[in-house]
């Protein structure tokens, strides 16, 4: 399985209720369907967590958290969907043909997508909004080439020796509104232990590697 297959499928599943007629028209969707979606999303989050413990991601020479890639894909995927929906809506206002009646009403779909992001992925919502504002049209990854390396003590030490640590946000293309990498070292442990960024264990390992090198 290619990592992007997994990430696109995950992004789609997260937003899938917004692309399903069973969630519109005042209908109450089957509870089994909602449970199925939430279970699949939980499994996806678990999978990314396991992935981030086994691998590191290198983008343009920067080691970034896998959650950066996940959140960026999610924001861009959602934005591309909304831009497309708005374009169809604008086209419907110009054209008048028989097919219009089969199209989904744009506003509920956009509200649904934004509701999912605001409720479950509030960190991604500002980036999504920026993408919509600039008319982002790409459903697929637009970032730099993704290099995936097996996380090992050796590579962790090498990264530490270069004076870098695993970053939460990519400096050349930030997706979070705050500079999340400007966290003081004594705060780093708290953030990692709270589970806010489950993939960012390399920062702690970085600190440990420095202590080890000082002792030796």
């Amino acid at each position, binding site marked *: 399985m290619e990592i992007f297959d997994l990430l696109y*499928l995950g992004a789609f599943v997260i937003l899938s209720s917004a692309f399903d*007629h069973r969630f519109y028209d005042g209908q109450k969707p089957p509870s089994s369907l909602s449970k199925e979606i939430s279970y699949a999303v939980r499994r996806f989050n678990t999978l990314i967590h396991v*992935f981030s413990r086994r691998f590191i991601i290198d983008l343009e020479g920067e080691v970034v958290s896998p959650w950066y890639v996940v959140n960026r894909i999610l924001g861009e995927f959602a934005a591309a969907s909304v831009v497309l929906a708005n374009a*169809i809506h604008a086209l419907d206002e110009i054209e008048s043909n028989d097919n219009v009646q089969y199209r989904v009403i744009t506003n509920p779909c956009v509200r649904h997508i934004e509701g999912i992001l605001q409720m479950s992925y509030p960190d991604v919502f500002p980036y999504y909004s920026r993408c919509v504002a600039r008319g982002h049209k790409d459903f697929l990854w637009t970032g730099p080439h993704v290099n995936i390396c097996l996380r090992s003590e050796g590579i962790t030490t090498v990264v530490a020796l270069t004076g870098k640590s695993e970053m939460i946000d990519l400096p050349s293309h930030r997706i979070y509104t705050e500079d999340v990498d400007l966290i003081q070292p004594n705060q780093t442990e708290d953030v990692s232990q709270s589970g806010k960024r489950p993939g960012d264990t390399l920062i702690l390992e970085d600190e440990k590697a420095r202590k080890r090198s000082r002792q030796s």
Partner: protein
Amino acid sequence: MPGGSPHWVLSTSNAICVGRHFYAKSTIQSSVVANVHSFLMGGSLTNQDLPETRTLLYQLLVFWSIRFDKTDVDGKFDFIVP
């Protein structure tokens, strides 16, 4: 044929077609994008709305997740996450 490929059916006489739709791993990226397009464009893009096939995508994600949990980095089933 990946999802989202424009196509049409041509027959020399009236016909009832029997077949299957399926999701292929190799084309999953275009399949999920095509799902969004189909939903947004509706009847102007497709003649069939198949929401029940979503279950296959949910199950596929769960299946990949479980498989990833139980394999080592080379994809062999000899490593189990405690």
